[in-house]
């Protein structure tokens, strides 16, 4: 079994699924001859031709709006939005059409498509290349939102996303793209949507994260072993619908929690998780849940980005705070 990074794992998933199911088409800016700015779709156009791996004009609403039309006709489009910051121009199509087509037509018309978006910070990119829009998407009915945290996860979650019957926003933590290698099997395996992953068991505190933050959290958890703090780490995997069960079960056990995300703090997904815990496990809480998040400011340019991103130091501080509360 080959050790792959996340870019290769997603590429493999696409390749295999396109072979298996000729309804799958890939479209987006630079996904064809260039193979994507991150090379996620590398080689796919050579293999499947320009009718199935399609370079589009530079127009995000155009990409997802036409993908919707394709899906209505029975294709399974996997659209790429080149960077998180360029998702906003197509939010109208996502919110007002993609998330509503099934409901609006009483089930007659559906658009099970996947929109892949490299997201998040940590690669010293220019402005608008480091955004984390998951909370906005989770607030949007009718779509699912998925964030893999490792190469293995990415392949299994992407296959489920393509095969599901609902539209999926597939947020790929670009910082992890080449940062981790792990064994990724060839051939079919899927990871169900809506189920969180218990990355590590622990009894003292629950840490909830997703995407690139899972790695930061594991670093922090590792460092805390010296302090005899056993952290339970949950990788949310699916942002919407969320695995409330997994969160609540863990909080009931540990009584303490820290949520880590890159998005701005206010109205980030962390807030929703706290609200759910408030509703379902308030009496188990032995300390306020801590949020380690981005700030309510635009993600700074490269030289100041490190101030913005949650890191293991901040995570450790938060864990110690909830534990010593």
């Amino acid at each position, binding site marked *: 079994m080959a050790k792959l990074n996340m870019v290769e794992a997603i590429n493999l998933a696409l390749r295999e699924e396109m072979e298996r199911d000729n309804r799958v088409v890939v479209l987006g800016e630079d996904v064809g001859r260039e193979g994507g700015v991150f090379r996620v779709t590398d080689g796919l156009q050579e293999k499947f031709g320009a009718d199935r791996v399609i370079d*589009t004009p530079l127009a995000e609403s155009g990409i997802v709006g*036409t993908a919707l039309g394709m899906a*209505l006709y029975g294709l399974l489009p996997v659209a790429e939005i080149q960077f998180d910051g360029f998702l906003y121009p197509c939010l109208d199509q996502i919110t007002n059409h993609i998330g509503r087509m099934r409901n609006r037509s009483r089930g007659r018309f559906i658009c099970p498509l996947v929109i892949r978006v490299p997201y998040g910070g940590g690669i010293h990119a220019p402005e608008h290349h480091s955004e984390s829009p998951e909370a906005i998407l989770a607030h949007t009915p009718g779509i699912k939102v998925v964030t893999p945290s490792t190469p293995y996860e990415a392949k299994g979650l992407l296959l489920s996303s393509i095969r599901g019957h609902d539209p999926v926003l597939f947020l790929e933590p670009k910082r992890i793209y080449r940062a981790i290698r792990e064994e990724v099997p060839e051939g079919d395996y899927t990871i169900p949507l809506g189920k969180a992953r218990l990355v590590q068991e622990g009894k003292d505190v629950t840490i909830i994260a997703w995407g690139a933050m899972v790695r930061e959290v594991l670093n922090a958890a590792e460092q805390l072993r010296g302090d005899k703090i056993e952290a339970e780490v949950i990788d949310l995997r699916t942002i919407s619908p969320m695995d409330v069960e997994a969160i609540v079960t863990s909080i009931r056990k540990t009584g303490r929690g820290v949520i880590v995300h890159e998005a701005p703090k206010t109205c980030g997904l962390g807030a929703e998780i706290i609200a759910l815990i408030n509703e379902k496990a308030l009496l188990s809480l032995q300390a306020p849940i801590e949020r380690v998040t981005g700030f309510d400011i635009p993600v700074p340019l490269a030289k100041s980005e490190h101030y913005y991103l949650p890191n293991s130091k901040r995570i450790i501080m938060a864990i110690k705070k909830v534990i010593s509360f």
Partner: protein
Amino acid sequence: MGLFEDYHPLKGKTFQILKPDGTLQPDSKPPISDQEIFHLYQKMLFIRLADQRALILQRQGRMGTYAPIWGQEACQVGSAAVLQKGDWVFPAFRELGATLMMGIPLKTIFLYWMGNEEGSRASEDVNVLPVSIPVGTHPLHAVGLGWAARLKGDAIVTIAYFGDGATSKGDFHEAMNFAGVFKTPTIFFCQNNQYAISVPRSIQTASKTIAQKAMAYGFDGIQIDGNDLFAVLVATKEAVEKARSGGGPTLIEGVTFRFGPHTTADDPTKYRKDEEIEPWKPLDPMIRLRLYLKEKDLWSEEVEQRFTEEAQKDIDQVVKDAEAVPAPGVEEIFKYVYAEMTSSLKEQLAYLKTTL
């Protein structure tokens, strides 16, 4: 395609066959038989009556906001009439005529405007999308579906209906551009009814015609008299055949006029003077057809009255049927959000039931 060259938008001509006085343009002939014309006239009349009924129902508080098509019957009936089974229609929100032509029952249309979710349900064999409220956004769907069909090798066409106002939206541009690049079998049918709510065509865009916007995307555009059923039939047919045979998209600008209010929520006297409406009245698409058909002995006041009475009875029944449909149950609003209801939606639904 001779027609699109002859009427290249920069030539400043508007394609017309049937003149307002019911006679034909020189060297023109009707595109279909007189019997067929009579048949389509009846459709138009039925549609006008149904449209008027909707307005009345709204005023009686029996229907919600409704967007009347009064004056736009030729655009909708003529364009829909040349489509085939397997073709796909993407309406905006003022397409009672076109969608009825394609097989959406009037009852469904009324249910929709009555605010009943059931009115959004199209039957499986009718390729008409539900009403699309966000202006200018749905042509992209028509492009995407046509594109998909082309990739699959299916010779179908897609048609998107929209207004003059919609042409200002970014999504209209992106749809036109994708259609041009990927040569999708798409007809962009713009019903230029001179207004977007209160905003007149002159403020909507500085281009002389809407048809000429096609030139920005490398495909044909044509301005036609949208109140002339024959012109609509011919131009749409030409565009449909071109699209079906791989010739790519066409933009058709049907010049017409919205005789009624924008919607029942609107008071057009605020922004539109009577003097402005007057010149349009004799251009009404029904009048010239009546004149033409009378000449052929197919129309008379009496025929009109008989048909109208029958149609009104049919519409009475439709209204009755629609009003008999119960308001949807509470499950109905949760059921179609996802393929399978998520556990959190199940929880929300269960909670909601406890509060009723």
